């Protein structure tokens, strides 16, 4: 009995938080590599993704992009048919808060994210490629489902501060 409750302890608090943190960082690595398959492995089937922003110009919350897992997979398959900027993105993420629900089945977390773009394509790639520039700043608001001690993303809202977005990528940030 004692050992079992110890296990629960480990699984549900510090351990779960550590796992969630790890999942967020793994997601950043997968996304940096455009490795969608690895990223989807971290997401539950009910996963929903959105990019949002608040615009003080029009005083409104806006959604710039949204989709469920199925739509995202569809989008990834379409990518090769579209013009996208090939400059890789580099996410710098710091997890700020993690709140695990009382029953230990779900969790929410907020992380800061700063994304740099390492120029590859350019108006004159001869000059521009190789330069890094700040692309987007914002926060990840994530929700997780925890099954058998394994956290999986069920929702990610990337709340960005930018309202000026020049040409860039079209995939999840």
């Amino acid at each position, binding site marked *: 009995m004692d050992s079992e409750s110890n296990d629960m302890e480990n699984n549900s608090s510090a351990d779960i938080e550590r796992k969630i943190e790890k999942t967020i960082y793994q997601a950043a690595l997968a996304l940096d590599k455009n490795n969608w398959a690895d990223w989807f492995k971290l997401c539950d089937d009910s996963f929903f993704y959105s*990019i949002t*922003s608040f*615009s*003080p*110009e*029009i*005083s*409104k919350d*806006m*959604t*710039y*992009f*949204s989709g469920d897992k199925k739509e995202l997979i569809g*989008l990834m398959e*379409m*990518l090769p*048919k*579209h*013009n*996208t900027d090939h400059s890789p993105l580099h996410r710098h993420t710091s997890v700020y808060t993690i709140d695990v629900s009382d029953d230990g089945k779900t969790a929410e977390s907020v992380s800061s994210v700063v994304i740099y773009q390492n120029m590859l394509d350019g*108006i004159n790639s001869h*000059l521009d490629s190789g330069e890094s*520039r*700040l692309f987007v700043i914002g926060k990840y608001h994530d929700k997780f489902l925890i099954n058998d001690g394994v956290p999986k993303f069920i929702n990610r809202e990337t709340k960005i501060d930018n*309202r*000026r*977005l*020049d*040409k*860039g*990528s*079209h995939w999840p940030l």
Partner: protein
Amino acid sequence: MDFVENKPNGSIDSDHVTISEKVAAKALDQAFIEEQKRIFKNSWVPVCHESELPEPYDFRTSSIGNENVIVCRAPDGKINALLNVCPHRGMLIERRPQGSFLEGQASGNPKRITCMFHAWQFDMRGNCVYVAREKEGYQDRFCKDDAGLRRLRCEVNFGGFVWVNMNDQPAVFLEEWAGAAFSSIQSQISSEPLEVVHYHKEVVETGYQELMSQGLSSIDNDTDATIFDYGHLVTTQGSADNQDAKKGKSFPSPNAASCTSVRIFPGFAFNLDGPTLHVSTITPLNDKQVMIEHRGLAPQADNKEARHLRSKYYNEKFGPFRLQELSEPEQNELDSVKANSWYTHYYDEWLRWMDKHPNGETRIVDLPTSRSKNGEVDEHSGLSGPHIVVVGASHAGVAFVDKVRKNGFVGRLTVFDRQVGGPMERPPLSKGFLLGGGETVESKSLLRQKKWYKNNRIKLKTQSNVETIDTKKKTVTVSSGDVINYDNLVIASGAIPRELPDTQGMGNAFTLRQPSDANAIRQAANNSDTVVIIGGGYIGLEVAASLRKKEMTVTVIEAAERILARVASKPLADRLTKLHEDNGVQVLTGVGVDSINAEAGIFESVTLTSGEKIVGDMLITGIGVFPDSTLAASAGIETQRKDGGAILVDEAMRTSEKDVFAVGDVALRRDQLLAIESVHNAQETAAVAAAAVTGSIAPTIQTPWFWSDQYDVKLQSVGVVPINDDDVYQVARPGKREGAVSFWSYRGDDLVAVEVVNDPATYMEARQCLDTKQSPDPEQISNPSFSPIDSGGARS
């Protein structure tokens, strides 16, 4: 990168600098400055949408040509635009993009715009209401009443956008500038209040010109495009007979499928795309960068579901994370020719504003004018090249010279008219003009101010009758005896009112065509109590309404069974008859004139065929006009009949003589049966002839339209109502407002014309139906909640 070189420390990355710093620091290209000064600071710019400042005291800031602008909502709900610069020491006042002045700020009182530097305060209209230490500091040398923020021209229109013009005296009013281009989507974007729900901006590393060229040449192949005056372009996705697009509902329905883009010069696009309205506005930053703002709009009344649907669609097409289709690698030649002609249309307008001539020649307005020996200005000094002579300086003649100059014609232009004084608009002559009391002609009714002719180097010769044309020698002889050579001749001699033989030389008996006629009627009316009007056409009825306003006793005599028998539908005529009768006019129909009687040479009465005698102080005959083509017919130019009738022309308005064109009321296209006597027709035919002379793109021909004002009734009519056609019938459609109604004329299921009373919104819808060849279901049109635009029936 060139920005970095201006910095002492070359290591500073240009991306760490804000846009406004970049703009300020960059050594600006001279051509860019010129473009800002000439085009952007003189154009109508949609700076924001009214929903961005929904409440009184809300504000939104913007900039035009690097000048800071603030738009505020006054306590009465009106929107004003002001220069966001303090008149005290020229400091920028409000720095936030958007907000409210309702609550006090750290350095400002509630309900005031406060400059943070020395606390001068202004109200929402820009009036200065507080100057710190006014009395102590300035004694009586200065008064705050003189120190307001500079008010800018501002109008809210076209779906609730706030349009600002930095020029206090813009070349044209907003409605004239963009009204025609917006007509195809106006009813959709104005049917219910919208709000901006998406906003983002991007800076593209492309110069303004290049951006426009790329945008216009990338328009899809199967796009229908219509060019409009002032460089605007309207495109519709899918060909005109695309049944799918037609069947689909239109915006604001969340299931809308059609797609229309209104591109307003110098670079604002209003895209009605399916369920969304996307508006992009450009702000050039320097010669290599342009900022584009994107706004997505949706009806305020949307439910959650509809909002979600639109949002998804918008993001995929216009959002910052949209996918961009791979461009089609090959464009066929025809498409690129089409695309080029759209760009040319835009570029022509650009040249006009920049006062540059397409072939590198100096623009007309730049040439110095000189004076001849007798001190008169010689508009033609320094001009060489072909000479175009125009006969008639009214709606058609003046529209022609305007257009031909706009098309870049640099040769000589001479316009002759036998009238005295500056050419005037005709429509007011039967309306407001008659109510005025003065003996002189008001300058507001002039077609163009005197300076305009001078600036455009147009020689206007009034009191000059053109007596003969020699098409072999290519000369005209003028009443002064002068013989003038021409390279092209344009006959815009209009029409002459029919007279009744009895009235010739009779005192107090008038017809109405020219300003001098209207002046004479106005003066006689000031000394008369009763008037008899022969003819129940538009002119007769308008005069009746005007003179009733002067409390005169008015009788209208019409020989046909009803008034407006030649030009309007029966239901409309019945309604107008009632209107006149309700206003105290005696309307007699189905009765002829037996004789017109005078006493001592002055009009006294009319004896009707019924034997009845109508006595009056004055008589006005309005029984139609005939084309003034004697001059042309005597020169051997083909007219309808040997002895006269309209001058026959081809679709380019060219007469049987290849160097001679005819426009306006005097001309009739060989493929048409009926002449349309209207201002719109005069302007349109003039534009067609001007395009033929200069080899420019001919304007798209619109469905004919016409208006008339009688009492407080505004009548608008689009399409030609077929008269005496048994297959034609009308359906009445009640309007939303009291007294508003429209009559829809159908032949079978096909819509042919619509007459609208006091209902401008319905008029716009009707015009859109006819322009796009849609026929709303005649069975349903009488139901005011049925939308004619959504019905989608295509006309055969």
